[in-house]
Structure formats: structure tokens, C-alpha cells
């Protein structure tokens, strides 16, 4: 029996950890008990920041990686964090999965880091929760004290928001006391952090998602597995995408239902479509920056981006024609 040491920077709560545990139990089941998993949650072994190095040096066999923590090392993979109007979880994850497992630049990047890419995660679509206003137009962002992160945060900042970078765990307090008025978050996560207790206006932005967020394995560990077990690993990793996409969509829907009912419900609005188009245009305008950063790292930036967009289109088509796999 092979015991796989699995490190995750997040605590053992919520959709992510539940689906990762599903993956672990499937591995065990389908390998007839040959592949076991031992989780180390909450960064007990090493922090998310060290995940790339930690798996590369086999401190853990498997870990969750987040490109924002090691932007240079994972620059090719960070294409998934470009703010694009690609908010379908399943489409996004499938596109990233295929890109990471087939594009030569990404394969080489993971290989150089002594990693084998297993599967993808997603934050799901980005929404804006505010204490007492909706973001109907881009002008509504001017002067707003807002907690936001990453490339999305940079765009909010360009639109005149005062962007503060806080961890999601600190936002409740910050919203409650008025240190920030608005927060960039994801539907299920708003409820997990109970932010709907202190902020009641949700602008359903359904913008892009963070997709440079995946699971990797140490190369030697991978090569040490039997062919049969590698086969199992690949199957389970691919099935994970469907499983996770289904679960997180359900979690988002249920969270919205719960938050909009009850004594003190959340109010929901959508951004004006013309304004949202402008916002999406600003997201596209950041593409050249990303391509330049990838080119600086000696990577074919334009080609990676084009391949990614082609894959997004491919899976959108599959979804439109056949629906989600779990509905069939």
C-alpha cells in the first residue's frame, strides 16, 4: 500500500476539502486499497506559499497550489487568473485541465518544478457584497473602500475603488466596523464567512473566476506508482472536475437560497449589462500585460492564451450541446 501525504493550506471545512476527501476515498476504492491518503490541513505541514516547493522536494506527495503565491514559478498556469468573462465553473475547470495536461509550455513548467499536474479547482464566479449599496455602474466603484485581491482587485483599483487586501477571514470584522464597505467574494464563501450577517447588498457580478488553483503531485511519487495505479489516479483526477463543478454550483445555489430567505435576507441585484460589458472589456485589456509577463519568462504567452481561449470555447460548446455531464 502507498500512503500519499497530502498538504492543504486551507482548514478542513467546506466544498474544497469535502471534494478533495471524495477524491482520496475514490483513489482508495478504485485502487482496491492500494492508494491511501493522509491529509495535513490548514498548512500544518507547510503554508500554501510553499506548496510548489513542498511537493517538488517531496515534503508532501500531493498539495493544492495557488498561482498567486508563486506567480513567477507558475506564470504559465496563471493564465487561469486573467479576469475574463468566463464564469462557468465546469467550463473553466475543464479548459484549464486540458490546457495543463496537453500544452507543451505548461507540461514543461510542471516538469521543471518536479511536479505532475493532477487536477484543477476553482473559486467559482466573482461577486461583490456591500454593506449598503449595489454596484450598478462602474462609477459606483469610485471611492468605495473595498477588499479585493489579485488581477480583479487591480481593475477595481483602476476604476477608483480604495482596494484593501485582507484575508477573507478578516472581512467580517472589517465590513462590520466599516474598514471596508465592499468585498470581492464567491457565493458559497460569503455564507461560510457569515458576511451576509453584516452586509446586505449583493451585486451578482458573475465575472470570471480564479482558475490558477489546482492539485499537483511529486514526480518521483508519480513515477513510483504502478501503471494500474497511475491509470486510477488519472481517472479520478479527471472525474474530480465534474464532481467539484457540480458540488460548488450546488453549494452556490443553496447558499444564495438560504441567504435570501429568513429574517434578514440579502438583497440581490445585477450590474447594468452595458456597464458590465465595459468591465469585461477592462479585463480583456489586461491580457497584453499577462502575455508580456509570460514572454519575459521565456514562454509563448500569446499561444498559451489562445489555446486557453480555444479550450474555453470548446467546452462551452460541449456544455451547450450536451449539458453538464452530471445531468446526463
Amino acid at each position, binding site marked *: 500500500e502507498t500512503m500519499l501525504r497530502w498538504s492543504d493550506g486551507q482548514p478542513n471545512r467546506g466544498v474544497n476539502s469535502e471534494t478533495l476527501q471524495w477524491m482520496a476515498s475514490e483513489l482508495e476504492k478504485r485502487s482496491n486499497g492500494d492508494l491511501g491518503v493522509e491529509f495535513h490541513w490548514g498548512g500544518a505541514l507547510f503554508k500554501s506559499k510553499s506548496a510548489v516547493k513542498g511537493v517538488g522536494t517531496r515534503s508532501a506527495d500531493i498539495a493544492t497550489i495557488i498561482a*498567486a*503565491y508563486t506567480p*513567477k514559478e507558475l506564470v504559465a498556469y496563471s493564465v487561469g487568473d486573467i479576469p475574463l468573462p468566463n464564469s462557468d465553473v465546469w467550463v473553466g475547470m475543464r479548459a484549464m485541465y486540458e490546457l495543463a495536461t496537453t500544452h507543451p509550455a505548461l507540461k514543461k513548467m510542471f516538469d521543471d518544478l518536479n511536479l505532475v499536474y493532477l487536477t484543477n479547482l476553482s473559486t467559482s464566479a466573482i461577486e461583490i457584497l456591500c454593506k449598503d449599496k449595489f454596484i450598478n455602474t462602474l462609477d459606483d466603484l469610485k*471611492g468605495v473602500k473595498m477588499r479585493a485581491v489579485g488581477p480583479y482587485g487591480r481593475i477595481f483599483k483602476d476604476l477608483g475603488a*480604495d482596494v484593501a*487586501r485582507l484575508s477573507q477571514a478578516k472581512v467580517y470584522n472589517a465590513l462590520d466596523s466599516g474598514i471596508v464597505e465592499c468585498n470581492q467574494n464567491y457565493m458559497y464563501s460569503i455564507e461560510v464567512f457569515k458576511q451576509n450577517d453584516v452586509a446586505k447588498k449583493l451585486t451578482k457580478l458573475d465575472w470570471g473566476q480564479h482558475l490558477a488553483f489546482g492539485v499537483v503531485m511529486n514526480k518521483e511519487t508519480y513515477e513510483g506508482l504502478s501503471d494500474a495505479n497511475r491509470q486510477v489516479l488519472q481517472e479520478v483526477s479527471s472525474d474530480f472536475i465534474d464532481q467539484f463543478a457540480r458540488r460548488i454550483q450546488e453549494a452556490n445555489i443553496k447558499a444564495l437560497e438560504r441567504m435570501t430567505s429568513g429574517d434578514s435576507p440579502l438583497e440581490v441585484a445585477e450590474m447594468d449589462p452595458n456597464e458590465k460589458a465595459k468591465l469585461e472589456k477592462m479585463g480583456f485589456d489586461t491580457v497584453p500585460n499577462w502575455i508580456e*509577463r509570460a514572454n519575459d519568462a521565456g514562454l509563448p504567452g500569446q499561444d498559451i492564451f489562445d489555446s486557453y481561449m480555444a479550450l474555453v470555447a470548446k467546452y462551452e460548446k460541449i456544455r451547450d450541446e450536451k449539458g453538464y455531464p452530471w445531468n446526463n
Partner: protein
Amino acid sequence: MEQLDLPNERSQGHRGVDPAFLVWLENAGVVVSSITIVILAGVITTSVVGRTFFGSMIPDDLVISGELMVTLVALPWAYITAERGHIAVELFTNWVSDRARIKLDILAAVVGLAMIGPLTWATGIALWQAIDYGSYFDGEFFLPEWPGRSMFFLGFFMMLIRLFLILAEDIARLIYNGKTEKGRK
């Protein structure tokens, strides 16, 4: 851990083998660390004042704070080590002879080396990799990782050298039967 609050305590610290350059460097470590604290307080205050009154903040202030933090934490270590200022439990060993005391000092230095040696190596490797990859932080300016990592490595490296000197000195004290001991309580 607050020996510094005790004005007379520091002079009791024992300094033996003291290459002037190292002493200067160790003191410089504390000075740079002190300056870093002022900068840190300044960055945070400016950031808050800016946000409250002008709606703008220092870009990448979180990354900068982290860089300042690793610097201010690491640089005084060699100085503290030279002063033999790390806290220990003295209770069970108060009654031992002077000679046994030197042996315990040797043990402490060896155990210290067993911790600091690997940490110096590991942080050195991490620094080398950060330079090799050109690692940077996510943020407004994609600030490079090497400055903070260099300071961190330097802190460990200076402490390592000091620990070796302390070990050599304690062994010498043991061989010459404690005669080189000066001013130790």
C-alpha cells in the same frame, strides 16, 4: 525574554573571542533592525492615514511589511547569541560546578548549531532559488523576493558564525580548565 528591560543584565553577558569586524557587523544588525522598525511603523501609519484622508494607499504595502518583518526579525540574532541572550531554564543546573557549567555551555552551542546549521543551509538554498528563478510577489509591482530572503539568510549566517566561535571558546575554556573565563557569573 525581556532581559533588555533589566539594565544591568546585558553587561553580564559574556563576550570571548571577538573579531572586531564581527562585533561591528552584529551591532550593525541590531541598528538596521531598529531602523526597519521605524520604517515599518511609518509604512503602516502612512497607509492608514492615506486611506482615511486621501483615499490612496502605499501600493504593495503588505509585501513591503513582510519584507521589513523578515529583516527586523533576523538581523539581531547574532548579537543576541553573542550576548548569550537566548532564554534557557536555569533551574536544574544552578548547583553544578563551574566545569560542568562549561560543559553545559558546550552542549547548548552544539544543539544550537544543530538547529541553525540546517536553517542557514535551507534559507540559503531558498535564496539561491529565488534569484535563479527570479521569483517575485503578486501585487502592483511584482516586487522581487530576493531582498527579504537575503536578509533572512544573512541573519542565520551571522548567527551560525557566532555559534561556532562560542563553541570554540567554550572548548578552550574547558581545556584550559576554565582559566580563560572572564567575568562570567
